């Protein structure tokens, strides 16, 4: 996973609430068991004219002003809905490395952290200010997000601090493999299971055998 420190670049505004993962990556666009090839499928239902691959000129990411966006700014509850991790793969393979929103769907947020995409949170008033600046033709839609200092710089140069848990920040900055970190705790896991089995033996009873006995 690519470590995340600081991203500076074009930012695209999506001034709506509840952008769901079905919108980010429609289910019908995930017809392969691979983890690659999703960049072109990002927001497919909004980005292309119905039933075609012709760009919808009204969609923000097709607007030349926001071409090559690495940052995305949205309202509340971004990434709500389905657990499909392809939503994050589509964003990152398109080139989006950070999202800024008032809040996120919990599973999407977890998936972001594990794929090197930063889900930054700002209060709705700050989000509205940034969205207004991004829509303002007089200012270039350039922004920066810095995970070392936990700050966001808006197109006009306003600086906003954001909060993120220290473990998640570390994981993003290191590009760490969380599974490996947990596997290193195997002795603790085994010890827990030995203790737990004495307390809750039914949780560890062989399910298949139990099943077979009853038939």
């Amino acid at each position, binding site marked *: 996973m690519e470590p995340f420190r600081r991203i500076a670049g074009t930012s695209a505004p999506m*001034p*709506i*609430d*509840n952008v*769901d993962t*079905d*919108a980010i990556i429609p*289910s*019908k666009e995930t*017809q*392969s*068991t691979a983890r690659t090839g999703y960049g072109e499928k990002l927001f497919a*239902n909004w980005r292309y004219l119905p*039933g075609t691959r012709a760009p919808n000129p009204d969609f923000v990411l097709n607007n030349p002003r926001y071409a090559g966006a690495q940052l995305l700014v949205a*309202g*509340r*509850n971004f990434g*709500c*809905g*389905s*657990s*499909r991790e392809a939503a*994050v793969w589509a964003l990152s393979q398109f080139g989006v490395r950070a999202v800024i929103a*008032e*809040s996120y*769907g*919990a*599973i999407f947020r*977890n998936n972001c952290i*594990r*794929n090197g995409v930063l889900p930054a949170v700002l209060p709705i008033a700050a*989000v*509205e200010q940034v969205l207004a600046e991004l829509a303002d033709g007089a200012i270039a839609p350039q922004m920066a997000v810095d995970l070392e200092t936990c700050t966001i710089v808006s197109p006009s140069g306003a600086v906003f601090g954001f909060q993120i*848990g*220290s*473990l*998640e920040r570390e994981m993003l900055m290191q590009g760490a493999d*969380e*599974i490996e970190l*947990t*596997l290193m*705790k*195997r002795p*603790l*896991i085994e010890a*827990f*299971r030995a203790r*737990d089995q004495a*307390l*809750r*033996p*039914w*949780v560890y*009873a*062989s399910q298949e055998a*139990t*099943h077979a*006995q*009853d*038939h």
Partner: protein
Amino acid sequence: MTAPRTLVEKIWAAHAVAELGDATDLLHIDRIFLHERSGGRMLQGLAEAGRKVFDPAMVLGTLDHIIDTNPGRTDATKFPGGAEFIAAFRDGARAAGIRVFDLDDPAQGIAHVIAPELGSAQPGLTMVCGDSHTCTLGGMGALAWGIGVTQGEHALATQCLPAGRPKQMRVRFDGALADGVTAKDMVLHLIRTHGARGGDGCALEYAGSAVEAMSCAGRMTLCNMAVEFGAWTGIVAPDETTIAYLAGRPYAPQRADWDAAVAWWRTLRSDGDARFDREIVINAAGLSPSVTWGTSSEQTVGVDEPVPAPGGFADAVARASAEKALAYTGAEPGRPLAGLSIDAAFIGSCANSRIEDLRDAARVLAGRKVAAGVTAICVPGSTPVKRQAEAEGLDRIFKAAGFQWREAGCSLCFYNGGDSFGSARRVISSTNRNFENRQGPGVRTHLASPLTVAASAVAGAIADPRALLRR
């Protein structure tokens, strides 16, 4: 003396393997459910990394998401590439020694419907699945949540997951529901009143006399939509209803274990003075049937109330969202949804496809016919539900009314490029998501209870089921 704790805090403490700092614990995961849509990918990822499934006996699999649900189905899917998913899943599961409830298995069905039916979803267990509606299992008193593919690999490889200690929320529904008003209407009302982010990432315990009086099925409907409320998960404290439901189920604790398990389950309730970060109280007796008008579950009204005007929303983003939703669904501000004509009616999904839901719908459909021009489809949540319904004669009621009677699966709950409602554009649906294009390109979904779906199918327009129940 230990400090008073909530139900979730008690289950949490029983699963904490290690403290990771930053209010995060490594939790033991008692049960992992896999399905063919993401399960194959998880097992593939694991194999590619040279990792093994930690404890295959704690993992179960089912086929639900992309399989065909038409009668006489085979492995062939309408979803292009579906066969590849199914094969990858079967191969991966076989190699890892994971039990799969395959197409021909009498226990097959939607993961969140069969986990309780098997007795695998139990009070106090931690359970995960690569599906956002895993929270459904909270209705059995399990601490259950949805995860992505990477975390799925994590759970399979380590039988653990790191999890941040959630804020604690309690939603009390007090009072008795009126006839014609169901768990679905309760949870849609909750989301409408507090927003699709109202759950704020919390662990949400549903309580109150209306929840205590409810079947496990209703509790699972409430918990199913905890994720649509923006909660991390939902849960209901186990009680005698839960224990009676589980007794004799094949994967429930057996013999001596059963008594020990029941003794523990009876301790799983929030202490009287437990602290909740947030508490919501709703008068269940005052609720009416709910229907969504937009593309988020928060965009809900009572069936006889007018659709709100976007001008009434607090800020620019909320207004723009309402306008976008209205443009998509074509619902008219100021007018009630009742009377809006529909093209299709769907009963199914992990929100409302259990036997109780089918009985509800059959109550309305008995002796009646689906309106001309309406495509009506019923997809039982599991093969056992289907068999039970057939034993009760419900299938005959559905078919006589003009409903298609399908095999179990997720089916038209979501559109994956295959099965669709054809040219039908406005659908009343017992599912849980009304997102743009969720049920097909341009399909406008109105979420409602099975009763409301059945009443609307008969009327050919969105309809209040209470009128048909009063005779």
